[in-house]
């Protein structure tokens, strides 16, 4: 259990840091979504299914969609 959780946390941290450093904003959004998705799995493993549901549906689905719509209306690459 502790191994799974620490592995997930390591992937989450990597995704969070790479979301900052990506120049392609679409990649950054997907990395940020991955943080939310893994956070929801962690919430579930830590026995908080209510929060896990909210995190998965809002953080991983709707926020990503809103960011991707915003990117498609503006510029994709960061200068």
């Amino acid at each position, binding site marked *: 259990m502790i191994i799974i959780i620490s592995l997930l946390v390591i992937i989450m941290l990597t995704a969070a840091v790479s979301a900052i450093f990506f120049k392609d904003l679409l990649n950054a959004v997907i990395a940020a979504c991955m943080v939310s998705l893994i956070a929801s799995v962690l919430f579930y493993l830590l026995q908080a299914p209510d929060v896990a549901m909210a995190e998965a549906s809002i953080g991983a*689905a709707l926020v990503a969609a809103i960011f991707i719509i915003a990117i498609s209306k503006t510029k994709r690459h960061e200068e």
Partner: protein
Amino acid sequence: MKKIISLILLFIICLGIVFCLQDIPFGAAKTKVGHYYIDNGREETGATNIVTSVVLNYRGFDTLGEVTILFLAAIGLGAVLATLKKKGKRQIEPASLILKTGCRFLFPLILLFGAYIFIHGHLTPGGGFQGGAIIASAFLLVYLGCRERKINEVANKITESIAGLVFIVMGLIGLTVGGHYFLSNFMPKGEINTLFSSGIIPIIYIAIGFKVGSELTGIIDNLMEKS
């Protein structure tokens, strides 16, 4: 020079946080209110899901604030986007057959799942916010898969307003009839662990589900169509 100053500032803030937090034992309960909810929540509110009993019964007023914040955010986005000029008629690319068919089959299922989540909010994990977000994602699927279809904006706004009104009216009825405070649970608790139980909690959660769903759908609609 600037970077060094900001690093020093960051270090000082870190030090402050560490000094503040080192006296608090990790994972230990400092207050008794959490144990009170776990021990007495079921009997007092009739809701099997303790999180729901806290969110809608003991801290119902905070939930009203949360819903209001979401409402203000949606209105702010609409106001910002309304000032933009439309760039003429945008041509809609038709989606592929697979996407269209999949969207047509998945849309009612996702809608049903969202409704299940917020109707059973007092029995199983989940509730109005989660169910509403799932319903909004179903409408997002329609916007992605069947671009020629549009939601009825007026019906969306009416649903949102009625749901918000139901919440506030239930609170005001509790002010006059039940425990004489805002959002008091004035209806009979019913049999624990059945669908029709725990008084006003299911009614308010259904209202929140409709409200959050229509608000988030409105946000997506504003972003997709008005810019």
